[in-house]
Every structure is written in C-alpha cells, then in structure tokens.
C-alpha cells in the first residue's frame, strides 16, 4: 500500500513554523517514515508544477503556514486546497494573520513608499517601484502582486483545522501528528487542534489578586516579581485574551504573554477581549486620570492585536473617507 501523502508550505511567514516541525526531534523520523512527503519547498526540491500535476485530493494532509500577502500566496493556497484532503492552517500567520498581519494597520502605499523612498537606507534616485510585469531584453518577467491587505488562510479558502501558535509548540505538533498517524478520530472540521480550550491564564501558576493598576510598564522598565500575575504588576499580559496550549511559556520566562495562540474559544476578537480585561484592572473612576493611565500604552492596537489584526472584526485600517 502506498503511504499517505504530506505537503508543507510557507506563504507570508518568517520560517519559524518550518523550524518548529523539525523541533519535534526524533519524532520527525516517524513522520517521515509514515508519510510520503510530496511537497516541502523549505526543505526539499519540489516545483509548483509538480503539485499541479497531482490529482485533486491526492494529498492526504497539508500543513500550510503563513498568511496571504501576495498573489503567489493566494494561488498556492488555492492549488493546495484543491489537491489536499485535509488542509491545516498551521501557525498564527495562517490562522489569524500574526506579525505580517500588523501591516493591515498601515496601507500598501505607505509600505511601498517607506521601502522604496522614505527609509534612510533607501537609495532609489529614479523612484523605481516593483512592477508585477516588466520587459527585459530576455523577455517578460513576472513577480507576484503585493496585495492591499493581509488575509488569513481561511479568508481565502476553506480550512479544515486551525493549529495556532507562533510557532505551534512541538509537544502539540507531536500530539496532532500522533493522532493522525494512529488513525484517531479527528474533531469536526473547522476545529482548533493542537491547543487547549481555556485561556493562557489557566495554564499560568502566578498568584492573582484584585487587580488595581495605576500605571502600566513596558517589560523592560522593571524586573517583575516571578510569582505575581504580571497584569497585577502593570505589565500588559494577554493571558486573559489568549487560548491555552503553550503551557504559558513566556510567562514562565517572566515575560508577558503576547497572545500568539490567538483568541480563546467563543471569543471572536482577541483585541476586544483584551480591552475589556484591561478596563477591569485600571484603578480609577476619573476620566482624566484614566486617560493618563491609558496613554502609557503606546500602541494599543498593535499590542492587543499583535497576532490577529486580519482575523479581527475590523480587519484592517481604513483611510479616512474624504470629507
């Protein structure tokens, strides 16, 4: 009998999701023995045309990491969707948009302007901008189009499972791969796998008190007490607005949770959840004082939606409508 086929792909991502697959250590040998790896651009030499030549639905499992930023990302997402029985949004970029998705707080034009004109290290006297198509003596060259906005994988194609995390943690990957390889019953399509069903706070051993915050601190401004809840100490910790699953890794290293496991179950909008949680810990009833305390948070949207701007209800920044 031929082995089940496995594909791995990276779209708009940092490569961390590729490394985390290798971080399952010797278990990778089991995976390689069980599956026939038919596509994995980061590690093996396959071409897109190899995938195009495959029969529809012939890939048993596709782990797709990365957000959708360019026309190439979108084309491969559609191709792999067609070829795969099970498509997994693997990692925060594919699930929620993650760090590439922060670009949705600015515009395409602002990004291009900064990179090709504004930044101090740019020398571009002729004001050259990348063009999707360009003629050179050898013929026509084509590069992918850079979209106006970053989208999640599920905003482009139907997704069977969501595996959050930046990156998904190796013990969770082992759990999921073992379940798949032993033929265990998988949860209904659309489910989050490889994560918990509570919040990061539930995995955190710190002592919580009645929260009374008069001042917020950036993580570098103080050495936090290792036993007390970070939020109680005025450090913005996204624990209450983040799904469990990592084992509160960052918090154990005395750093606040940034929210990489995405919103917890039954929460659509991670940032809204965090706004709600923060509003409960601030100790003031005076509008001016509240404003002063809030002003200590330099970038609320980028902090509360660090991993989820594209998946959020507002999705991206609007340019102000013409008055």
């Amino acid at each position, binding site marked *: 009998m031929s082995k089940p086929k496995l594909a791995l792909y990276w779209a708009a991502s940092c490569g961390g999701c590729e490394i985390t697959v290798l971080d399952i250590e010797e278990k990778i040998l089991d995976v390689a023995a069980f599956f026939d790896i038919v596509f994995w651009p980061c590690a093996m030499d396959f071409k897109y045309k190899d995938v195009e030549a495959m029969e529809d639905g012939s890939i048993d499992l596709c782990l797709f990491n990365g957000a959708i930023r360019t026309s190439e990302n979108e084309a491969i997402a559609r191709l792999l969707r067609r070829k795969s029985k099970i498509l997994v949004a693997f990692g925060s970029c594919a699930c929620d948009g993650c760090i590439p998705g922060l670009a949705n707080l600015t515009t395409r034009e602002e990004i291009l302007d900064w990179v090709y004109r504004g930044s101090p290290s740019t020398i571009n006297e002729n004001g050259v901008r990348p063009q999707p198509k360009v003629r050179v003596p050898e013929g026509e060259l084509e590069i992918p189009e850079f979209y106006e906005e970053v989208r999640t994988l599920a905003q482009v194609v139907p997704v069977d499972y969501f595996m959050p995390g930046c990156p998904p943690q190796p013990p969770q990957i082992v759990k999921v791969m073992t379940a798949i390889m032993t033929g265990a019953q998988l949860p209904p399509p659309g489910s989050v796998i490889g994560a918990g069903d509570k919040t990061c706070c539930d995995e955190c051993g710190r002592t919580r008190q009645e929260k009374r915050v008069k001042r917020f601190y950036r993580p570098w401004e103080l050495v936090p007490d290792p036993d007390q809840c970070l939020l109680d100490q005025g450090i913005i910790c996204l624990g209450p607005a983040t799904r469990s699953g990592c084992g509160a890794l960052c918090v154990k290293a005395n750093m606040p949770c940034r929210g990489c496991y995405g919103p917890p179950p*039954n929460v659509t*909008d991670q940032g*809204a*959840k965090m706004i*709600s949680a923060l*509003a409960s810990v601030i100790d*003031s009833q005076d509008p001016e004082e509240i404003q002063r305390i809030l002003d200590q948070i330099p970038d609320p*949207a980028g902090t509360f939606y660090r991993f989820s701007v594209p998946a959020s209800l*507002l999705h991206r920044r609007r340019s102000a*409508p013409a008055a």
Partner: protein
Amino acid sequence: MKEQERFEPRIIGFLCNWCAYTGADLAGVSRMKSAPNVRVLRLMCSGRVDPTFVLRAFQLGADGVLVAGCHPGDCHYQEGNYKALRRTLLLKRVLRQFGIDERRLRLEWISASEGEKFARVANEFTEEIRALGPLELTAALETGPALELEEVRA
C-alpha cells in the same frame, strides 16, 4: 442638498435598563422630538457593553455607536458605568488606529428623568455622524466571522 438625498446615519444605541433606557422612554412618552436614527438596544447595564458589540455594530453597518448609562455613582451595579468609561476611552484609541474617527463612538450619562437629555444627545449625535458621513465597513469586511451565541454568553 435635497431632503431625500440627505445621508441618514445608522446609529446603534446601547442603553442601560435602569437609567438611560428609562430616560429614552420618557423622551418618547413626553413626545419630545428625537432623531429616529438611533436604534436602541436595552442592556441591563452600560458595563455589559462588551467592546466586541461595538466593533460588531460597526462591522455590520453602523455609522455610529452610542453607549449610555447611569450618571457616575448611580449605576445599579455600582461599578458598571466606570468600566464602560474605561473601555470606551481605550476602544476610542484603538478605533483611531484602525482609521475610524473616534467620534463615531460616544458615551453619555443619562438619568431616568433626563428624557430631554436623551433627545438632545440623539439629535446632536445624529447630526455629528451625518457630518462625518457613512462608515461603510460592511462591504469590505464580508469575510468576518459570525457572532456565535456562545460569544454573547461568554
């Protein structure tokens, strides 16, 4: 501009049961003239207005959102309106970063006897949003997930 071409803003009003809603009701029974643009949703307390409700209202086509509760010190659940105050101030900053004019979200204290204030706020806010123009998030956001019942309960 001709009367029928005038932009009619859609405004969602989250009103607390004990003060603001009663105030709005009073405006109604006293036959005060107040803009019909504010569509009222009654909640037990302004502290119940989850920021998700506000964002969802904008996403589904609201041009403005009014949150109204009891005056400071008068909330029937002690702290709810202060919570609403802190949430609103923080949410306004986030809205600004998403390119949404923060005036589209407004917080007001309206007591049960202030029917007149409700009418004035509804009229003023409607005119303010009319001047700001339509927000039109709906079309661009059709990929947004649906609000689940569990989320309302959460």
